[in-house]
Every structure is written in structure tokens, then in C-alpha cells.
């Protein structure tokens, strides 16, 4: 759409910054995520430090976290100078990224609760849902059946919320354990890597045998 046209034609011009910033706001309210546009915004901030807008940067980083397991957050931090990243607000975002990447989910939700204002979670619709989705996906790829208590802790859901979640995803619970759907990741399949010999390799041999 029009943002892409702007980026394609005027990527390095700071004139397009207002539109890009507005687009970030739109992504927040629509619960969408556009990595390329956000990276373009960050790049313009990198090249024109006097135009940088820390609110927008914070929003972009939080949106990036919502797109886990993709490593958007990492790509964004490559473009943000140390001077900005060392500020407290960004340090706390870095902290939750760290907790998420090392899968310390219980600690992650605790930290979010403790620092809700600083992180501005209330202003980001869909943040909790997106992260719950990520947590569920990781658990799904690791467990075939997982203790319910553990699951609820990792997902930051109480018993009622948990049953609602399970119901909406078609997962079942029995004996305090949740049975997770089988997929490629949570089955250990012996991969047999066999050797393939290319034809041209063989043809050399064959031709010399023939002569």
C-alpha cells in the first residue's frame, strides 16, 4: 500500500518519517505488524539522530516482541544506538526480551506485572495474546503432554482462563496433564541422512571405465 510506495521511492528521505510514524501507530491499534516499514523507520532515525522519537522506537520494539518466534527484535536492536538502548525504558524492554528468549516465562509475566507502567503494556492491544501464542507454540513443540499447573504458570492464566484457552484450541486435559497435538517438532523421529551421489560425479568415473 502507500507506505510501501513511499519506502520504495524515498527510503532515505526523512520527509517520509511522519507517515511512517503514523503507520506505527496504526499497527499498534490494528494489531498488525510490518517489519520492513519499522526497520525503515529505525534506519531513518539512525541516519538523522535529531529526528528520533523514543516513543515510536519503544512501540516498534514491543511490536517486534509480539512477533516471536521470529527474531524481529534482534534486527531492530542492530539499528538502535547504545546511547538510546542504555536508557531505563529500553533496558526493561531488553530484559523482557531476554526472559522470553531463554524461555523463562513465569519470570517474564512477573516482570511484566511489576513494570506494567514502564513497559506501557496497557497501551498495546494484543500484546498478551500474541505472547501467549508464542508460549503455547514453544510448549507445543517440546511437550507431548505437559503438567497443567506448569502450563498455567507459563501462560499467565488462571484455571478458568486456562480451560477457555484449551477449549478454543481443541486441546484436552486429563489427570492434571494437558495432551498436546502431535506435530513435527514434538515427535522425535529418527532422521536418516543417506548419501546421494550426483550424476556428474558418477559420469566421470563411468567415462574412464569405458575408455
Amino acid at each position, binding site marked *: 500500500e502507500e507506505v510501501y510506495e513511499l519506502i520504495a521511492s524515498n527510503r532515505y528521505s526523512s520527509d517520509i518519517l511522519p507517515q511512517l510514524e503514523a503507520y506505527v501507530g496504526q499497527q499498534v491499534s490494528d494489531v498488525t505488524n510490518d517489519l520492513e516499514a519499522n526497520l525503515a523507520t529505525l534506519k531513518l532515525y539512525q*541516519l538523522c*539522530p535529531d529526528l528520533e522519537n523514543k516513543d515510536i522506537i519503544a512501540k516498534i520494539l514491543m511490536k517486534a516482541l509480539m512477533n516471536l518466534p521470529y527474531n524481529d527484535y534482534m*534486527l531492530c536492536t542492530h539499528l538502535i544506538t547504545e546511547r538510546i538502548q542504555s536508557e531505563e525504558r529500553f533496558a526493561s524492554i531488553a530484559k523482557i526480551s531476554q526472559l522470553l528468549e531463554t524461555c523463562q516465562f513465569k519470570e517474564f509475566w512477573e516482570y511484566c506485572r511489576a513494570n506494567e507502567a514502564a513497559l506501557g503494556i496497557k497501551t498495546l492491544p494484543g500484546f498478551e495474546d500474541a505472547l501467549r501464542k508464542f508460549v503455547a507454540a514453544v510448549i507445543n513443540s517440546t511437550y507431548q503432554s505437559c503438567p497443567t499447573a506448569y502450563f498455567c504458570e507459563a501462560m499467565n492464566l488462571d484455571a478458568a482462563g486456562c480451560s477457555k484457552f484449551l477449549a478454543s484450541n481443541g486441546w484436552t486435559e486429563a489427570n492434571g496433564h494437558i495432551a498436546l497435538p502431535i506435530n513435527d517438532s514434538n515427535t*522425535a523421529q529418527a532422521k536418516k541422512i543417506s548419501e546421494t551421489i550426483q550424476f556428474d560425479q558418477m559420469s566421470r568415473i563411468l567415462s574412464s571405465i569405458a575408455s
Partner: protein
Amino acid sequence: AFPEVSGSMQYADYYDEPETSGYDLPNFRMEGHLDLEGEPIDAEMDSFVVPDVVKTFFVGFATAVKEQNLQDIHFNYENNFNKLTERYYSKASWPPPEVVSPIVGDDKMFLLLYKELYYRHIYSKLQPTIDHRFESWENYCEVFNVFLDAPATGPLPLTLPNQWLWDMVDEFIYQFQSFCQFRAKIKARTEEEIRLLQEQDSFWNVYSVLNYLEALCKKANINTILDREKNGDIIAAKAEDGSFEFGSQPLFKMLGFFSLIGLLRMHCLLGDYYLALKAIEHVDLKNKSMFTCVTACYITTYYYLGFAYMMMRRYVDAIKVFSSVLLFIARTKQHHTRSYQFEQIIKKNDHMLTLLAACLSLCPYRIDEDVHSAIREKCSEKMTRMQNGDEVQFEEVFTHACPKFVVPVITAQEYQDGGIYGQEAYKLQLKSFMHEVRQQQLLPTIRSYLKLYTSIDIQKLATFLETDVPSLRNQLLCLKHKTLSLVWVDGPPLSGTLLPCSDIDFYLDKDMIHITDSKTERRFGEFFIRHISKFEEIISDVQRK
């Protein structure tokens, strides 16, 4: 394609790695060239007496350029220029353009090209002053403008060897890096220099550099051309609207292509790996014909491609890229042993080998036997330390092999503070890389334990690892999460599908971990084929004698 003869002289210092002076980046050229008394040599000499041999060279070179005699131009550029440099100008600059102008009858085009070589020589053998830097920038603008302003009616009456075109783009970016480093060391700058830097901020402005590269790409319409060539179309000289299709002239096509690689490099230097990969999305990596005409181009492309993948945490892709180019270098090394480029090729080879070792420590993956033995030979110690999670070793490897990142802009505040900012960009990228390393620190130990069992109770594993069950649960999740990465399958380099990339597969059922190792068949076919071919060679050798 041109024969791979001696490369340009500027490589000698660009990749030079002298002892660090404490401020400079570890692998950046040491500033200052000293004469016998330890005084810095001024780039200008007082009197310029041009030897006759050199005069003949100039005349011959200018004629070749005017007559578009590609062979002669190539010969002059590659051989004569370097020979004369060695003989007369190894410690002094070439005659300044004003002196050369009357010798070649004020041939403007030749003078622009000569100035490019003149400044390149100063950067390589001498210490460029701020004026040299500004003048060189203006010259590049003029040269590029000649290309960009070529009228749409017909081809530009100029032809240059591919090696020169590549070197031009390469040197352009190198001088930009050098300028950023120069500018970022505010402490070492005189007041006059600081004033000039702040006033003339259009010189070596990062936007301008990027825009020039983009403009060269657009002029040659390189992306469309690459797409059409992929489909097997032949590029006609007339574009659809009747104007001249610049991409059909080899000069523009190659210049456009090299600019594309230049963009890949620029974006990596600025830390924007996503955009770097996007820049080359139209390049067909499977078809190597465009690259291999200039070896340096091929190696540079793959180096930055692999590095970008690595920083995007796409270790499998990085491993594949590094392996393929290392194999290429190993195979073609013998053709370059006598060329100027040899040293730099070896150096880049070394860099990529250590980066590959780092990637393999973070993501074990099966690679070619030849590459594996090369790693074992050159960096087995480093690799063992990295596999044990030695952070210092990772830092060392990264510092040694990373590109020389640039600080694109200095703010007014920073000018005032008068510090040294050259390392900021590098430190940022290093920090990000080390974050990843630290997050994965505990994983190799877990992996090695898992490999020993087909099933193990979570409590038992926790005891082995001297940790508690909740932490272990987190770490197992982390292992799964970290080994799920984007892998390139087909299409543009940026694309990829999320795939599990671990060498061990496991899952948890209640409190029991079930593990399967991937089995690899013994590969004897390749081994036999290789030895059969070697044997054949020996036999034919013996028979010939």
C-alpha cells in the same frame, strides 16, 4: 570474462591488520605513514619531474581509453600502473592531475579516471589529509555523474575493464568507511578540521553514498535485467519506450551489478541486515557467472551474505554460504598465488573459516569433509573453546572477522564532547552477537547429555546438570526455541521457512524426555570417487612421462 591477473593495489592496505593503537578498530588500517625520521610524509612532493617512461605510459593509457581499446586499458591498469608504482611511486604520490593534464592533451575523461587512481594510491600508500578526502569525494561524484548523466539516446562511448569497475565501487565504499572513522575520532582532529567537517556535511554524507549506489543500479535497471536473465531473455539495446537500455551495455550492467553488491555491503556496515539481503533479492545466487569474472566480488558477496545470515540468527544458512565459498577458494587458490589479491583472499578465507567455526559451535550441522578438515587444521582450539561456551573466545572471533562497521552520523553534541566514537558501531553489533551467545550458553551441555540417552527422566537430568526441574524445563524450551530458525529454501536470499535445525530430536511426555539422534549413513561413495579421480590423474601423469 577477463583473465584473473594481478588485482588493484588498494587491497594491500585495506585489509591490513597492524597492531592496534588502542583507539583504532583491530582490523583497520593504522593511520600515518612515517619516513626515516619518524615524521609523517606529506602526500605532495615539492617538485614533480615526470620520468619519460611515465609520460609514455600516460599517453598510451589515454589513447587506449579514447579508442575504447579494452585490452590495452586492462593491461595498462593491471600491469603498467602497478609496475610504475613500484618503481617510482612506492613512497610518494603519483604526479598530481595538473601536471598530467598537458601530457595527455587535457583529456577530461581520462583525467577523471586518472584522479580515481591517484587518490586511491594516496589512501593506500600515504596518509590522506582532509583535503584529499574531500577532493576524492568530488572526483567520485564527477565520475559517477558521467555515468548517470549519459543521455538516453545511446550507449556511452566508454569501456572499462570489470576489475576496474569493481575496484571503483569497492574503493568508494572503503573511502567512506575511512572517512567515517576519521570523522569519529573527534579527539584527534584539529579545530579547523572539526569546523570543516561540520560545515561540509555533504561530503561523504551517508545518504549521498547510498543514493549514488542506488542511482547506478537504477540507471542500469539492474534488477529487471537480472530477472529477465533468470528467465533466459536476451537484453535488447532498445527499451520499451524507445530509449537506450543501459543495462545492455556491459559497462553499465557490471557497474549496476557491482553497485548492488556495494549496497549489500553498505547495509551490513550500518547494521541493517534485513535491507542488505533485500538489496540482492534479484541476484540469482545459483548462477555464478556474473560473480566469477571478478573473484573479489564473489568472495565479498558471500562474506557479507554469510555474515548477514549469521547476525540474523540464521546459522544454517550462514554455514551453507560460508562452506560453499570456502570450497570455491580452496579449489581456485592455485590460480591466484602470484597475484596481489592472494593475500586478501587468504585473509578473507581465514575470517570466514573462524566465523564458520563460531556458527557451528552455536548450531551443529553437517558440512563438507574438506571444509571440516580445514577448520580442524586452522582453528580446532578456538572451536573447542567456543563449544564449551567460552565467551571471550566468541568475542575474539567476532572482533577478528567482522566487517568494519561505520558510525554514519556524528551529532552536534558529540562534536562538542570531543570524544572518540569510531568503535560505537562495532560495539553495538558485538553486544547483540554476545547476547545470542550468552542466551545459548547452557545449551551445549544439555545437548551432550541428551545425546547419551534415548529416554531420561527430567528429575534425573536435572540432577546431572546440577539444576532444578523448573529451570531445566525452561532450558529445554529454550533449546527448542533456539533451534527453530529460518532456513532458505528457494527464491530471494531473504526468504525462508521456519524449520527445526537441531541434530537431536526430543520431546517431553509428562516427566520423561524421549530423544532420537539423527542417523547418518556412512558416506563411502564420495570418498571412493575422490580417490578414483586422484588415481586416474596419477596414472595419466605417469603415462605421459
